[in-house]
């Protein structure tokens, strides 16, 4: 720490540890999810409970598959950012909070990729 100048300590990353990226990304994904949620819900409620063959048939078509891919991408980015704030707000112990933030940053990206792979495999 003593090697850092005062300027270096505040440049870019202050005590908040980030600038407006989180705020902006949370809102960009929110805006993206307004149309994507409606479109995804439309394909999903038609497919849920209609049987395996019908689900494969639905998501083999490009439009439902692309909607599902965009929805899953946006929704997991949005919920990762949201849960990050929840962890930051409600977990007071620093070590526990850091561990949960690392898990949060990794797990949701992993789950999202699993979802994207599944849809790609059905569609292609």
């Amino acid at each position, binding site marked *: 720490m003593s090697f850092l100048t005062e300027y270096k300590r505040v440049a870019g990353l202050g005590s908040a540890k980030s600038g407006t990226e989180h705020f902006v990304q949370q*809102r960009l994904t*929110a*805006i993206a*999810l*307004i149309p994507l*949620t409606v479109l995804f*819900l439309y394909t*999903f*409620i*038609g497919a*849920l*409970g209609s*049987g*395996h063959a019908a*689900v*494969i048939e639905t*998501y083999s078509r490009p439009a439902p598959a692309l909607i*599902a891919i965009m929805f*899953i991408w946006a*929704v*997991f980015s949005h*919920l990762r950012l*949201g*849960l990050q704030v*929840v962890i930051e707000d409600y977990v007071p112990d620093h070590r526990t909070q850091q561990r949960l933030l690392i898990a949060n940053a990794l797990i949701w990206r992993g*789950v*999202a990729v*699993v*979802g994207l*792979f*599944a*849809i790609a*495999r*059905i569609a292609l």
Partner: protein
Amino acid sequence: MGADANRGNRPLSPHISIYRPQITSVLSILHRITGVGMSVTAVLIVWWFIAAATGADQFAFIDGILTSWVGVMVMVASLWALWFHFFNGIRHLRWDAGVGMGIGESTRSGKIVIALSIVMTILTVILAI
């Protein structure tokens, strides 16, 4: 260390326990609860997709859970959570743009969000059946 002298001793904001619940605060809390809750539903939907991509037997297992009475209750609750979070999120985006921030306007938009979330949940369930 001056700023830390009272750490652990000072009153912590927000003072939820001494506030009378208001529509604005209740909806704010519900926005977080629905967001956290839907994370579980999102995992279930990914499970449903990966099972569908894997094979008919794997798909039958998760599809059976989601379409059982417990599963349907979870999905309908998630559907309400989705529409609530959807409309309340738009309410938040309007606030971010500096629109509708008055106390009266916020109370009114909150009531509209509750009404729309219930109406859209019923409409979506009807469409799904």
